[in-house]
C-alpha cells in the first residue's frame, strides 16, 4: 500500500503553498500569502477513535491541502464541554464536533450542524445475556445505570417507545466506571456501542444490546457544527474544512489499521489499549457507513427522539453538498 512519506507530504504542502501564494499575490498583494488559514476544532470528549478522521485529515495533510491549518482541541472538563457551543457561536472556536443530545441542550446558541459523521446514534442500553433480559419490556423492575441528564432523556425516549415509563425501571446514578455492571450491582448499562459495549465484550461478556437506532431513534450523531454567523460570512471555509475532514474519515474507513496507528502514534499513551481502539473503530464503521450511504451525510429532516425535526436554522447540508461537488 502506498503511504505518503514525510518528504512527499512536505513536497505536496510546498506545492500547495506555492500555488496559494501565487494566487493570493495575484489577487491581494497586501495579504501575507504563504500562511495557512488557522482554524480550530473543539472535540466533545477526550481524544479517541470517535474523532479518528480528524486526526487522519490533519496528519495526512488534507487540511493543509485545503489551505487550512487545523488545530484539534480535546475537552478538559465537562464545563469545558458545555461551553463549546457558545464558544463556537461567538467564533472563539471555528468548528465543534459532538453528540446531538448535547447540542440540543444548547439550541439557543446560534450554531449550525453541517455534517453527521455517524448516521446513527451510538447510544445503547445493554445487559448480560444471562440476565434474563430479552426484550425492552423486560427492563421493567431492573436496575439501570443513568450517567447524566442527556442519558436520561435517551432512556426515557427508548422506554416510551415500548410502553414503559421511567418509573418502571430502577434508576441508579452512575459514573463512567463500569465496575457496578461487571459486578452485577447494576443490571443494565447505558453507553456507547463504540465504547462501553466494546469494553464489556472484550472482557468476554455475552451481551444483549438495545441500540437506540434499532428502536426508532433515527437521527445521526457525532455532528460537525460551526457558528451561524461565521458560516454565512465565509461559507467557503466550512466547505474546505468539510472536504478535508471527510477525506480523513474516508481514508480511515478504508484503512482501519493504519488510521488507528496514526492515532496511537500521536497519543502514545493510548498504545497500551490498542486492541480496544481498533475494536471501537470497527464498531463505529456500521454507524458511519451503513450500506449505500455516503460518509458525512446529513439528513436535516430526520426526526429527533419522537417526531420533531431539528429547527431549520440549526441544520444545513449546503456546505456538505458543495464540498462533495468536485468529487
Amino acid at each position, binding site marked *: 500500500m502506498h503511504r505518503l512519506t514525510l518528504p512527499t507530504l512536505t513536497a505536496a504542502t510546498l506545492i500547495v503553498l506555492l500555488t496559494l501564494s501565487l494566487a493570493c499575490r495575484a489577487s491581494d498583494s497586501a495579504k501575507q500569502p504563504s500562511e495557512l488559514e488557522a482554524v480550530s476544532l473543539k472535540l466533545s470528549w477526550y481524544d479517541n477513535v470517535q474523532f479518528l478522521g480528524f486526526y487522519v485529515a490533519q496528519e495526512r495533510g488534507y487540511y493543509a491541502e485545503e489551505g487550512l491549518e487545523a488545530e484539534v482541541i480535546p475537552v478538559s472538563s465537562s464545563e469545558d464541554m458545555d461551553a463549546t457551543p457558545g464558544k463556537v457561536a461567538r467564533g472563539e472556536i471555528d468548528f465543534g464536533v459532538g453528540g446531538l443530545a448535547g447540542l440540543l441542550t444548547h439550541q439557543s446558541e446560534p450554531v449550525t450542524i453541517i455534517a453527521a459523521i455517524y448516521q446513527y446514534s451510538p447510544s445503547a442500553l445493554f445487559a448480560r445475556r444471562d440476565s434474563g433480559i430479552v426484550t425492552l419490556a423486560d427492563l421493567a423492575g431492573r436496575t439501570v445505570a443513568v450517567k447524566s441528564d442527556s442519558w436520561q432523556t435517551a432512556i426515557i425516549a427508548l422506554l416510551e417507545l415500548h410502553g414503559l415509563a421511567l418509573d418502571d425501571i430502577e434508576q441508579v446514578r452512575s459514573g463512567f466506571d463500569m465496575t457496578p455492571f461487571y459486578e452485577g450491582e447494576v443490571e443494565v448499562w447505558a453507553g456507547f*456501542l463504540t465504547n462501553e459495549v*466494546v469494553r464489556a465484550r472484550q472482557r468476554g461478556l455475552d451481551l444483549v444490546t438495545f441500540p437506540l437506532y434499532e428502536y426508532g431513534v433515527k437521527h445521526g450523531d457525532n455532528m460537525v457544527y460551526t457558528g451561524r454567523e461565521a458560516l454565512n460570512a465565509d461559507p467557503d471555509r466550512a466547505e474546505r474544512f468539510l472536504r478535508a475532514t471527510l477525506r480523513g474519515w474516508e481514508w480511515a*474507513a478504508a484503512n482501519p489499521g493504519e488510521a488507528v496507528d496514526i492515532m496511537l502514534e500521536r497519543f502514545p499513551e493510548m498504545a497500551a489499549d490498542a486492541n480496544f481502539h481498533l475494536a471501537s473503530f470497527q464498531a463505529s464503521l456500521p454507524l458511519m457507513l451503513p450500506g449505500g450511504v455516503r460518509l458525512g451525510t446529513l439528513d436535516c429532516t430526520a426526526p429527533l427522539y419522537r417526531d420533531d425535526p431539528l429547527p431549520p436554522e440549526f441544520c444545513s447540508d449546503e456546505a456538505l453538498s458543495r464540498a462533495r461537488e468536485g468529487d
Partner: protein
Amino acid sequence: MPRDSFRRRQFVVLLGLSLALIGIMLGTVLPVTWSSLTRRVTMQLEAESVHRAAEMEHWLEEAANAALLIASDISRHFGNDGIPPTDGAAESASQPLANMTERLRVFRDVLDDVASVSLLDLAAGRVFASSEPTLVSRVRENEDYFINGQHGLYVSPLSHSVGAEAPEIVVAAPITDLEDVLLGVVVLRLDIDDLVDALGHPLGLEEDGRTYLVDRYGFYATMPPGVEGTPLGKLAESEGITEALTGKTGTGRYVDPRGTSVIGAYRWLPEAQVGLLVEADWSVVTAEIQRAWTPVIISGAVLLVLAVLAARYLANWLVRPLERIGIAARALEGGDLARRAPTGGPDEIGQLADTFNRMADSVQRSYEDLERAVSERTQELEELNRQLEGDIVIRRQAEEALRESEQKYRSLFENMLNGFAYHRMVVDDDGRPVDYEFLDLNDAFEQLTGLKRENVVGRTVKEVLPGIDKDPADWIGVYGRVALQGEEAHFEQFSENLQRWYSVTAYSPQMGYFVALFFDVTERKQAEETLRRSEENLRAYLEGAPDGVYINDLNGVLLYGNREAQRITGYTREELVGGNFLDLGLLPAEYIDKAAGLLALNAEGQPTGPDEFELVRKDGTHIWVEITTMPVEREQDTVVVGFTRDISERRRMEEQLQRSQLLASLGEMTAGIAHEVNNPLAAILLYAELVNRAGLPQQVKKDLRVIRDEARRASAIMKDLLTYSRKAEPVTQPVDVHPILKKVIDMRRYQEQVRNVEIATDFSAGPLRVHGNSSQLTQLFMNLIVNAEEAVEQAEERKITVTTVADGEWARISVTDTGAGIPKKNLSQVFIPFFSTKTQGRGTGLGLSTCYGIATAHRGTIRAENNRGAGSTFIVELPRVQADGDQARTGRRRGRPGAGRRPSPSGGGAS
C-alpha cells in the same frame, strides 16, 4: 614434503570428485521432487480454494432457497388475512403470533447454519416475529435487506450491523399474500461460525492449515481454526489478505497475520464482500522436501566417506598412476560414469586402479540406484497426482450430485416445505407411550416414505408398520418424549425398508400430539460420504509423503512446508505457512540480504544452492542448514521450491578447524612481534636503570621508576606471548600431573581463603603420568585455576573442582567453576591472545592463550565448555604415559584427542 603436498592434492581431487557426484545426484533428483511438489501443493491449495468458494456459494444458495421456501410457507400460512397488526408493543403477542414464533423456531432448528429467522412488517420495517425473542420489535427500515428483500430474494454482503458483535450475512425474501400483494420480508441471519466449521482445515491438515474469512475492512470475519478469541477488533493483515481485499485471486507465499509463513490461496468473493483465505503452513512444504531428501543425503554421505577413505589409501602411491586415475576421476566428475582407470603396471598401482574402478563401480551403482529410486518416486508422485486429479473429478461429481439433490428438494418444497405428518400419541394406563395414530400428512410425506394417506390416516403406526415397536430406533419412545414431554427431536435415520436417509424433526404443538417433518437426505448423505473419502485420500497423500520440502513465492512468502521443515525450524505449519521467510524471524538479520539475493535469482528463473544458512529455530536455538532452491513456473506465477538439510554437525567441525587455524596463525604472528619488541624493551629497561643515578631530582627518579616498571610489565607480556606461540616442543619427561596440581592448589590456598572460594579435587586413582614440562604445566594449571577464581568471584556459590581422568591414551584434567559461564559467542574466542572480558589492566590478557600454547606444545588440546547448570569447565587433554616407554607417540598417531568422543554440545559439557 612432496608426500605431504601430494596427499593434499589427491585428497582435494577426490573430495571434488565426490562432491561433483553428489552434485550430479542433486541435479537429477532435485528438479523431479521439486516440480512435482510445487505442482502438488499449489494445485491442492487452488483446488481447495475453488472448492471452498463453491461450497460457500452453495451454502448461500441453500440458505437463499430456504428463505424462499419459508417465505412461501408463511405466505400460505397467512393466506388472505394479512399479517396480524403489531405496533411493536409486547402485549400484542397474540395466539397466531405465538404460533408463528413457534413455526419460525422450527425453521431455524431444521435449517443448519441459520442463527435466526425473523419476519419484518412492511409498514415500519420492524421485526414483528422472530425465532429469537430479543429481536422482536427492532427497527430494520434502513437495512439493505429490508429494502431489497421486498423486491425479491436478496443475499446481503458480509457486514457488521449496528450493535452486532460479529459480522453477518443475511438472506431476505418477500412475503406475499395469495394475490401476490407484498406483506413483509422474511429474514434469515446466517451463522458464519457454522460456515467456517464447515470450511474447516484445508488439505486435511490439522493445525497446519486453515480457512477463514476477512471482511472488506480487513477485520477477521471468522477466526481461523486454532486461533484464539473472537473477531472483535482483530485486524487481519497479510499479503494474501491485501491481495484478496483488492479483488484479486491467486496463490502465494506470505506471512499470515500471526507472523507465520504460509502458502495460501486467496480470493475475493464479490457477492458476499468477503476475502476467502485457504492457507497451509510453510512448514508443511519444507517437511515434505526434507523427507524427499533423506535417502539422497544418506547416499551422499556414504559416497563422501568412501571418497575420503579412498583418498587416504591412494595418498601413499606415486604421482603418475594417480594422475591417470585423476583423469578418470575428472571424467567421472564430468558425468561419464562408465569411465574407468587403466589397470596394469606395478601390482600396487594395479590394485589402486582396481580399487578406484571398484569405487567408480560402486559410485555408478549408487547413482543408478538413486536414479531408479528417483524414477520410482517420480512414478509414485505422478500416480498420486493422477489420483488427486481423480479426486477432484469425484468432488466435482459429488458437488453436482449435491446440487441436483437440492433442486429436487426445492421442488418438493414448492408445495410444502417437507414431509409432514401429524400424530396423536397413544399411551397406556401408566401414561407410557405405546403407539401413535396418524392424523394428517402431506404429499411430500407420501413421496418420501411411500406410505399413502388413505392407508395411513386414522390408523396407528403399529397397524401400518407391524413390528415397529421392535425397531432398534425406538420411534415410539422418541416421539413419546416429543409428544408428552414437549422435547424437540432432530435426528437423521436410515430406513432399511426404503433404503433411504431421512432427516427428521419432531415437535409437539400440543400435549399428546406431535408433528414429524421429514427430509429425504439420501443424496446429501451419499455425497458427503464421497466427499469425505476424497478428503481422506488427499490427506493421506500429503501426510504420507516421506520428504521434506517447502515452497515460497517470489516474495518469500511460504506457501507450504512439510513436517520435516517443521522439525528443522521448530515452527508449526500454521506459524510457517503464510509467513515470509525473510521476516519470520527464521533468518538472522545478517542472512536476510543473502536470502533476498537468492530469491532475486529465483525470480530470474535460476536455481540456487546449495547455500548455507544459519536459521533461528522457534525455541531460539540455531541450526545450520543447506538450502537448494529451484523456481518453478506455473500458469500465472512462479513459485520456488526449496530443500533444506540440517548441516549443524558439519558446521561445528568446520568451525573447530577454523578456530585452531586462527590460533596457530596468531601464534606465528605473536612470536614474530615478541622477538621484535623484546630487544627495544631490553634497551628501555637498561637505559632506565642507567639514567637513574643519585643526584637526580626526586620527581625525575619517580618518573624513571614508572618507565622501568611499565617496561618490565611489557616484558612479562612478551614472555607470555612467546609461551603461547612457542613452536618447538618443550623439553619433556614423564611427569605425574597430580603432584603438580596439588602444588598449584596449595599455592592458591591463601588467596582462596581470602576470597572465600572452595576448591575440591577429584583425582583418578594412582599417578597420572604425561609427557610434560613440569614448570610449563604448573603455569598451565595455575592460569586455569586463577581464571576459575576470577570467574566465581561475583558468584554466590564459589566452588572450583579439579578433576583428573585417565581415558585410554589421554590424561584429562578439568577445572570446573560455578561462575556465570562464558557467553556462547565467546566460547570459541577465549584462547585468542588479548581476548579478555576482564577489566583493562588486570592480568596480561594472555592467561588462557598461554594455556593454549602450552597444551598444544605438549601435543594436547584445551577447550572450554559451559556447564549445564552454571559456570564453565576448562578441559586439558594431554598424551598419557602408559606402563613404560613412549606411549605418547601412539596418541599422536591416533589423531587429536577427543575426536569421536567429544561431548555433544547438548549433552552437558562438564565431565
